[in-house]
């Protein structure tokens, strides 16, 4: 005899440890199986785009720190690139190299948190997370050396960076670059072939290649689905065309592939860091830029491959000291578009893992 059942709605978040911030989703379940997902956003909306229209181009740099606060350096870089495109500002060679060094260190730091939190969601409670925080701490120490801050750096400027690195920075960076591959091996030994992780992440939350492209996914989420697309290679900004590195991709687009792509990207970042360190020239770190920048009337879209995906700034100038329009193409908001398709058909326990594998930062989603 068939038992009569009806769909059941549960609410996860906004205050929930595995939503990585204040994200809320309404899951409609049939027994344990997810049949519908509705993400509900906006709990951290601060109106940054509107605020930025009332501030000068330079004053807006600290706002970008507060988007994806796990990758402030990358946000700084994307914004100053857009302003430089708009105003046609030159950047000294040494500053370009230091920008790349900071952006790649930031990518490693962001992936460490992303992977650590993902493993946490998988049930490897806190141990791998703290292993990864050990190395992230070293990166934060490096950042503290160059700008005195550990989270919101405000380091890049239009036309360069705020100040040159102190003399103890390069030896410390060298030590980090030598040690890091060994630590990545250690993470691999810890969990990469772990039976439970494989069972929970392999084949789960598949995002097919076509759907990934159609939903405008970017970053590790897109690459795990087998699309070899990295803006550092596809549309090299700054000086990325001078470095040798590979683009890791996945085969199936499942949670495990997204995890693997992040681990491999860390290795590639170390490769870039090595080359950048060797080639680092001497010289100025900031070109002569007036305090109040008045870009000519026009618009510019500057984009970079941020740790979580394509981060872009669309700026419109009316030749005043503040942007007329300041739009942020937030990678993690757009990566969430595919969330519903990835979750439907999976069990409620998988929802947490699928969500964790996207690696989002709510401060950037909601802005």
């Amino acid at each position, binding site marked *: 005899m068939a038992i009569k059942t009806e769909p059941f709605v549960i609410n996860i978040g906004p205050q929930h440890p595995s939503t990585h911030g204040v994200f809320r989703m309404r899951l409609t379940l049939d027994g344990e199986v997810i049949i519908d997902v509705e993400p509900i*956003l*906006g709990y951290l*909306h601060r*109106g940054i*785009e*509107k605020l930025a229209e009332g501030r000068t181009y330079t004053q807006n740099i600290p706002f970008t720190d507060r988007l994806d606060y796990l990758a402030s350096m990358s946000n700084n870089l994307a914004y100053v690139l857009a302003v430089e495109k708009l105003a046609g500002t030159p950047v000294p060679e040494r500053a370009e190299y230091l920008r790349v060094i900071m952006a790649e260190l930031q990518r490693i730091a962001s992936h460490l948190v992303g992977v650590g939190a993902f493993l946490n969601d998988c049930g490897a409670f806190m141990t791998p997370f703290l292993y990864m925080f050990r190395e992230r701490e070293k990166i934060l120490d490096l950042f503290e050396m160059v700008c005195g801050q550990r989270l919101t750096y405000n380091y890049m400027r239009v036309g360069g960076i705020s100040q040159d690195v102190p003399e103890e920075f390069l030896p410390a960076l060298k030590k980090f670059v030598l040690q890091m591959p060994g630590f990545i091996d250690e993470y691999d030994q810890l969990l990469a072939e772990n039976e439970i992780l494989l069972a929970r992440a392999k084949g789960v939350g598949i995002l097919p290649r076509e*759907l990934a*492209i*159609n*939903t*405008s*996914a970017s970053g590790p989420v897109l690459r795990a689905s087998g*699309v070899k*697309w990295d803006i550092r290679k*596809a*549309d*090299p900004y700054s000086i990325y065309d001078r470095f040798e590195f590979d683009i890791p991709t996945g085969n199936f687009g499942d949670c495990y592939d997204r995890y693997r792509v992040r681990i491999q990207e860390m290795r590639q970042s170390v490769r870039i860091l090595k080359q950048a360190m060797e080639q680092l020239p001497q010289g100025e770190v900031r070109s002569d830029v007036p305090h109040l920048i008045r870009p000519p009337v026009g618009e510019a*879209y500057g*984009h970079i491959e941020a740790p979580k995906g*394509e981060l*872009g700034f*669309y700026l*419109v100038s009316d030749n005043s000291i503040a942007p*007329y*329009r300041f*739009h942020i*193409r937030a990678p993690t*908001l*757009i990566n*969430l*578009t*595919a969330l519903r398709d990835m979750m439907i058909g999976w069990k409620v326990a998988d929802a947490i893992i699928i969500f964790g594998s996207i690696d989002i930062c709510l401060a950037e989603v*909601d*802005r």
Partner: protein
Amino acid sequence: MTVALSGEEIASQIEEHFPGSIAESSQQSLVVDKEFLLVAATYLKTTPGLDFDYLTSITAVDYYDYFEVIYQLTSLQHNHSLVVKTRYYGRDNPTLPSVVGLWQGADFQEREIYDLMGVSFEGHPNLKRIFLWEGFKGHPLRKDYL
């Protein structure tokens, strides 16, 4: 390097297929009449050689006389890009066709524009506020809001 295709060249191609569809074009971008937005977008997505399979971003700007919506298109296959714009003149209930049917990635971004700029998208499957709450008055990114 992603090649930014010339707005003028693509505009003349579209104009050839759909006379009267192009309002303006320059080297950097082209402006499509809103009545022709969907056919032009379909043409850009499906024509071999163009293949704009990836919608990088959508955003809107309030220019007082009109609202401009900007579509940044990319072809991952050919590694080229194009900026397509469309305009709505007037300030009362601006409405444009939705491109969610072509690129699902437009879903949240069109909701964001609706929420903050107050431009509606016809044919969007779930057009409601995304960041602000239901019942919020006004659209903050409009220039006359504050």
